[in-house]
């Protein structure tokens, strides 16, 4: 079962205009890029924050009281005990938890560690204080329930704006379910698969405006697999273009490895049918 990116439907009472949503933006282990993606909406940010009651944002605020939130946007993945404690506290304190960006949603590149050689980093793991000991790097929905996902590394800045605008008027934002290829076609890009590049656009959820391919760079799948992806066909296409199993496996696992538990079996099957 692929969990991503499924937005759960929940009934909410309509929010009165005078009653602004209490919102918090937090980060656990990550690169701060998703939180910056909120701030870097240079044209909208000041008006946007007028729509909500911003209670906490430790990245740019000194006072961040522990209180009950309507929405918490959380960047980052669980990599330490402290991350997990923060996550659980925020989950308990918030009506809705929004997974902001790829680390929170899929584990992103840090979770690729599950698939690399242990000897690459193992010698480091046991030296630290107990409180700082590593946990297996995992997305937040491994530990708590998540109400909304804003996927992507980094997330699309415009998607964050429209998400906040939607919740401010009591609407439920919906996920983008079509693959990257749909937007890529609209942007008149030449298909990178046709040029022999290993583009993962066909199996990756869009909403990114195909920004990488617009820049000449193939899709690495950071927004996670689409619900109805055809992994077998994707692998076949890549193999036809000369990419081997190791490359395909590494590439697909870089951003969303934990969301593709079936990958090994599908690859095995593809070897048998050849």
């Amino acid at each position, binding site marked *: 079962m692929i969990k991503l990116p499924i937005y759960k439907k929940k009934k909410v009472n309509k929010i009165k205009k005078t009653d602004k949503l209490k919102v918090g933006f937090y*980060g*656990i*282990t990550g*690169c*701060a*890029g998703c*939180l*910056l*993606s909120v*701030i*870097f909406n*240079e*044209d909208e*940010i*000041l008006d946007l*924050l007028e729509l909500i009651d*911003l209670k906490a*944002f*430790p*990245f*740019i*605020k*000194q*006072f*961040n009281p522990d209180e009950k939130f309507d929405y918490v946007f959380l960047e980052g*993945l*669980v*990599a*330490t005990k*402290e991350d997990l404690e923060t996550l659980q506290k925020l989950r308990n304190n918030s009506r809705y938890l929004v997974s902001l960006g790829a680390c929170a949603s899929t584990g*992103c*590149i*840090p979770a*690729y*560690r599950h698939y*690399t*050689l242990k000897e*690459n*980093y193992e*010698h*480091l793991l046991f*030296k*630290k*204080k107990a409180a*700082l000991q*590593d*946990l297996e*790097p995992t997305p937040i929905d491994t530990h708590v329930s998540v109400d909304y996902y804003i996927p992507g*590394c*980094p997330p699309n800045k415009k998607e964050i704006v429209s998400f906040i605008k939607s919740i401010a008027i009591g609407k439920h934002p919906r996920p983008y379910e079509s693959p990257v290829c749909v937007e890529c076609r609209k942007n008149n890009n030449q298909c990178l698969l046709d040029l022999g590049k290993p583009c993962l656009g066909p199996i990756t959820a869009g909403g990114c405006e195909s*920004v*990488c391919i*617009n*820049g*000449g*760079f193939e899709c*690495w799948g950071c927004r996670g697999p689409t619900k109805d992806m055809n992994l077998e066909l994707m692998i076949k296409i890549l193999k036809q273009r000369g990419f081997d199993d190791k*490359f395909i496996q*590494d590439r697909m696992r*870089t951003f969303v490895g934990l969301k593709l538990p079936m990958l090994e079996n599908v690859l095995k099957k593809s070897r048998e049918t050849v």
Partner: protein
Amino acid sequence: MEKTITLNHITKIEGHAKLALGIKHGKVTKCELSSTEGSRYFEGLVLGRHYNEAHEITSRICGICSCAHVTAAIMAIEDALQYTPTEQTKQLRRLMTLGERIRSHATHLYFLSLPDYLGYESALAMASEYKAELQHALNLIRAGNNMIKVVGARDLHPVSAAVGGWLKLPSQQQIVELKKLLIAVKKDAVKTCKLFFTLSYPKFESKAECFSLVGKNRYAILDGWFTSEKVSFNKQQYRRFLQEYQSSSSTANFVVREGHRYMVGALSRLNNNSGHLSKDAKKMLKLALNDKKLDMKLNSHNPYMNNIAQAIELVHCIDHAIEICNTFEENGIRNEPVDKIRVRAGTGIAAIEVPRGTLWHEYTINDKGIITKANIITPTAQNLLNIQEDIRQFVPNIINKKKEYIIEQIEKLIRSYDPCFSCSAHFLEVKWE
């Protein structure tokens, strides 16, 4: 009297860090600044991957300086392949790096630093009274982001940069528009300087050596020797001079220069490169040096002056970027596809100046183009020991003040370094034969 101060979550910095401070009989008995970010082991993650995948992975070390990690990774790999990029490729890399410096400094100065000096808890809380100032910040951030977008196709984690060139080149039209935008935001940079010159900074001298790259004919960006008042060495020698070590209380490595702490960042760059500033940036520097209240000298060892240095760099970066746009306007942009490079085994090093200081990337690749070793040293890792020792040295000056005041001053000191704990945390010890 015994006091302990523990700051578990230092706010308004990139990433997560904490400080444990012990004071007894007017003396600092304990001072431990540690990163509490989880480790992500990037140097382990790139092993076994092809060389042209390294920059896409290491970019994720940091959001605000993603261009830096992309550029450093690419340049180190090119060094390993003994490949020299074209002048156009280098100019575009400079343009992207300058854009990043502009948006990063603007974000730090206005969102992380300024509220401390104006007595607000956040920039957002200042919005009603300081709307014009916030607008300067947003204008500068917009300009920086636009520069990165024009060159790299996306403002965070840019995608068009590649080993051997650029996957997509900006159009002449984009460059013309970019130049217009840069000319328009220059006044925001000048106003930023003037605003930060009026703030009052504590008097404090750090005992650190100030290191930065020093270029031959331009203010340091992508090349030059690693230089302080005392020594200068080229990038190939870095492992002889710089040592990394771990502390049991932090997820970040500390870095020392032959056993001594040192400082990197905008202030070090200004100290070492002031002769190469643009004309208008030099004017700003002169204004700062003549300001009696500010009491700034060159070379300055007062870490609070890093704010001033960043403000002056804003003006310089815009001027330098306009200059690059001018050459593109005159000469046009040549259609240069990404070069095909013959794969060979080797080791390559890149040292570049990024918003928070000098960034080091080193990779070894085998004859199939697979990465077998990687080492990354970030600016904050180099500053970390220095920030900690500065706090130890600074606290006795204010030891009789209230706890709240001490905390406020310490946080100001930490923030003036513009540390990025996201960057500093995720590194592992690399054993080199």
